[in-house]
């Protein structure tokens, strides 16, 4: 690690959020909910490759992390993104910044891999 690299201060809450997102199915659910609106378990199930029970279980993890909330719509339970967690512009900018970090990390690996292999 170079001296210019800073590690964010440990933040248990943030770690919980990332842990919740650190699963492909949950990331997929969050991605679907990021599009906006209130989605039912049936809608979320049909958009993923896992069972209704699996979706329910993963939503519970996301609920604990404060990433989603449920809303009663008549007799049906609907799910939506918890905006205070992800939704504001600052956070999305931070997210884009993290994407740049990931891209720069890949570039670093690429140029430090030694002799150019691309031919």
């Amino acid at each position, binding site marked *: 690690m170079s001296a210019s690299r800073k590690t964010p201060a440990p933040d248990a809450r943030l770690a919980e959020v*990332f842990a919740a*997102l650190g699963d492909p199915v949950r990331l997929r659910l969050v991605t679907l909910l990021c599009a906006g609106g209130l989605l039912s378990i049936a809608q979320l199930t049909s958009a993923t490759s896992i069972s209704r029970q699996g979706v329910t279980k993963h939503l519970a993890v996301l609920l604990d992390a404060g990433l989603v909330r449920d809303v009663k719509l008549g007799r049906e339970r609907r799910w939506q993104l918890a905006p205070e967690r992800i939704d504001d512009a600052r956070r999305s900018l931070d997210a884009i910044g993290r994407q740049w970090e990931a891209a720069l990390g*890949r570039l670093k690996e690429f140029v430090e891999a030694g002799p150019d292999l691309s031919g």
Partner: protein
Amino acid sequence: MNASTGTDRIERSIDMKAPRARVWRALADTGEFGRWFGVSLATPAFVPGEWVRGHITHPGYEHLQFEARVHRVEAERLLSFHWHPYGIDPEVDYTQEEPTLVTFTLEDTADGGTRLRVVESGFDKVPAARREEAFRMNSQGWDAQVGNIARHVGV
């Protein structure tokens, strides 16, 4: 990696143990650019004023297009382009939206390596909904980051 995020711009930098000429080639050669960025570019070179196009190669995001208009190219020092933040959906018309400007600059470090800085500016003109979209469409970046953080915290 340094981070400074206002509301209009994102700035990140990283030090690499590679000479400036090597890093420049990884940026300015569209084939090499595509390999680390995750895009297959049909255009052979970055030429000021011209478009560079291709498709995203991250699994699950292949339907998204990469489309950028080259702004400046200064050998081994600076490459910049305008784009709509991150992969764009061919179904959506972005022509009414202001693009952001992405600028890469290179400088030597004291130990013979290279510091690369990337600045993306102009977000204040991008609607909030669109910024969310950029985030949503590029959750691939989150995958890697989430993996790193999860390992870091021992999840």
